């Protein structure tokens, strides 16, 4: 599927490299999907921050153990994962139909559905709805989609103040900071840092505030209470949207979400189009997979569901903004689209050895970690996040834990190939790396050429002293900054084999005879 229902074609925006026939990517200059620096540069900064390393290591170690414990309780965990994967794959294959069904169901129950091609349109739609409600303040449930599109900035530009009500999101907002984790946005902060932020930024907090977690939560509760009671507009994301009934679902731990979706008169939900699921029965699968994978709980404390408007109860003006912002472009890639299966549990972040050491900010997107490395480049176009698919050692720990079995290492390898292929098409001169790879392929494609290169590489023995090389020339200099490199041995395996078996194919290189004699004891 390359066209998207309900969004009429429109010429690409200026600055977009795409042809008008391709689905558009998330636009530049708005929202939080693009990094200021390539991953290796941002990671280097993060790696030097001892406090960050300590905070992340402590938090991810704890949550990993919790997840592992509750997942091991379920004998049918692998079947549940397979079911989750199958539902998502089937939904993506028929996404236009399910979205149409969702729109009809929401509308039939008194809700209003809006279609947003991208971050800019979504921001305009939400701003207009808030203005129509006559509000200058909104309360927000933690939502990745609204952060992705930079909604708070769009509202602020229209004079509307958005208050984050999730504790961690509040810490980030008060700290003038960016989220660094999709579930625990302030995972990079420890409790004494949080106390300092509260003391500095909350006008109404007691100066005796301690860093006891209960005291911090109570301070946040007091701070937010007035906002909950006065706000007339609530804004949320959605974990799931059920096509058959038009029901939207938010899963959370603190109860702030429940307040936001029940107290205000107007409720606006921004939902990525990939969050639709076909039926109630499907919801049952995901509500088993999500809490165990994300917070390591058997069930999360609050699961809020609403279907259009219930007269006399809860918000009387209910809106659903369906957001594309590059998702259709991801859907157009039959391999890459698996990234859209993500239910944002964050298990892949918590097990990732790269994320654990660099933290979320290094990825430069609201979606960090392994899933971010495969999702962000697809939403923005690979060129705009070109370092992310390489920000992984391909260890595969993410794939093992993913509740919907997204094969993230395979997607990373796929996106690397797309990046190289797109670069080949658009750049006239090949990069140094492309030349190196082509040369290596040429040498390795033939055993005779390989044997010749092996002989030449033994000139590398000149670089080495006492059996190791401590400094290599570029591009391998990065290797020897922290590691010694092996000195090529006097004889390759191929030559040894030949010396033993006299097989002339693959033959010996000149000059190995003396090498062989000093190893005659073997």
């Amino acid at each position: 599927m390359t066209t998207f229902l309900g969004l009429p074609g429109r010429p690409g925006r200026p600055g977009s490299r795409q042809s008008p026939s391709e689905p558009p990517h998330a636009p530049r200059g708005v929202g939080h999907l693009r990094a200021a620096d390539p991953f290796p540069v941002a990671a280097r900064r993060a790696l030097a921050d001892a406090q960050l390393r300590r905070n992340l290591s402590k938090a991810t170690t704890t949550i990993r153990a919790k997840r592992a414990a509750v997942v091991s309780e379920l004998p049918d965990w692998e079947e549940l994962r397979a079911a989750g994967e199958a539902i998502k794959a089937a939904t993506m294959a028929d996404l236009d139909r399910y979205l149409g069904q969702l729109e009809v169901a929401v509308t039939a129950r008194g809700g209003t559905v809006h279609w947003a091609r991208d971050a800019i349109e979504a921001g305009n739609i939400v701003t207009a709805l808030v203005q129509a409600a006559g509000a200058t303040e909104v309360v927000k449930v933690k939502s990745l989609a609204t952060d992705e599109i930079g909604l708070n900035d769009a509202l602020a530009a229209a004079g509307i103040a958005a208050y984050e009500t999730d504790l961690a999101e509040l810490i980030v907002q008060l700290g003038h900071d960016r989220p660094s984790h999709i579930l625990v946005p302030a995972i990079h902060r420890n409790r004494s840092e949080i106390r300092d932020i509260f003391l500095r930024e909350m006008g109404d907090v007691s100066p005796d505030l301690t860093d006891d977690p209960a005291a911090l939560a109570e301070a946040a509760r007091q701070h937010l209470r007035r906002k909950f009671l006065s706000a007339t507009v609530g804004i949320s994301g959605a974990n799931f949207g059920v096509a058959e009934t038009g029901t939207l679902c938010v899963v959370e731990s603190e109860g702030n979400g429940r307040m936001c979706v029940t107290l205000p008169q107007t409720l606006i939900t921004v939902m990525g189009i990939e969050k639709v699921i076909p039926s109630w029965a499907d919801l049952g699968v995901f509500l088993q997979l999500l809490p165990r994978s994300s917070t390591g709980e058997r069930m999360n404390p609050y699961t809020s569901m609403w279907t259009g408007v219930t007269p006399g109860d809860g918000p009387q003006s209910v809106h659903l903004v369906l957001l594309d912002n590059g998702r259709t472009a991801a859907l157009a890639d039959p391999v890459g689209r698996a990234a859209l299966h993500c239910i944002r549990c964050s298990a892949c972040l918590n097990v990732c050895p790269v994320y654990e050491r660099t933290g979320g900010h290094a990825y430069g997107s609201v979606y960090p970690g392994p899933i971010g490395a495969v999702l962000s480049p697809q939403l923005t176009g690979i060129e705009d996040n070109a370092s992310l698919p390489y920000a992984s050692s391909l260890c595969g720990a993410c794939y093992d834990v993913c509740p919907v079995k997204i094969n993230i290492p395979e997607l990373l390898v796929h996106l690397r190939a797309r990046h190289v292929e797109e670069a080949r098409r658009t750049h006239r001169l090949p990069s140094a790396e492309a030349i190196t790879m082509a040369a290596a392929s040429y040498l390795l494609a033939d055993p005779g050429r390989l044997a010749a290169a092996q002989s030449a590489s033994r000139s590398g023995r000149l670089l080495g002293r006492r059996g190791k090389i401590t400094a290599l020339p570029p591009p391998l200099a990065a290797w020897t900054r922290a590691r010694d490199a092996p000195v090529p041995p006097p004889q390759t395996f191929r030559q040894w084999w030949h010396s033993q078996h006299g097989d002339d194919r693959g033959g010996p290189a000149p000059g190995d005879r003396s090498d062989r004699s000093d190893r005659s004891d073997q």
Partner: protein
Amino acid sequence: MHSIVGDVTRIALFATCLADTLFPDVPRATVTLLERLGHEVVFPAEQTCCGQMHINTGYQRAALPLIRRYVDTFEPYEVIVAPSGSCVGSIGHQHAMVARRHDDEELARRAEAVAARTYELSQLLTDVLGVEDVGAHYPHRVTYHPTCHSLRLLAVGDRPLRLLRRVSGIDLVPLPDADVCCGFGGTFAVKNADTSTAMLADKMRSVLATRAEVCTAGDSSCLMHIGGGLSRLRAGVKTVHLAEILASTAGAGQGAPAAVSR
């Protein structure tokens, strides 16, 4: 995985380009070990490289001739072994995928057939040849790093440990946080050298905590990474491939565990 215990006589060795060039003692040890167990080992000289580095760096088109060469070279053999979890992982999980991505269904099918007969060393020994006690002797304190591709792509599980436990004289100590990546990741170690080094530091911390004199694994590439770090720190710990330990016997070069040319 098919089990053909007992009737394997001839085994084709895929040495891997890295071990062939830089760590020849590893494929040599593989030959020594398998011959000692009574099997004939052949080294098809037309072999070169599995193409993993190209594939994982995004250069799939450049990997195609390497895949074709691997398939052409090893197609005639019933049982193929490589002393590398990541190369066998690439052969099994990537060769056919790359061929299909380039619309070569015929190569993809052939690649799948050859991959199904290609075993990592510990798989070959335990599943195909049905041995755990290979008659090795190695009187050293050793810790085993499972390597990600052996552990996750190939799911070799405890096969290497079962083999190591039967080695006489060995003092095998568990590695803390063994399943965490060492940070190698092929070109990741160069493209993201700082992050790779941070991961390596934690792996070395775990290795040193065991007070082992030898760190072993089933992959020369990860060992090159860990060993390169330990060597730089003058840590006094050697990296030795699993094949070399299993090839060792009483009286054969037991003095020093420094079997890797470094």
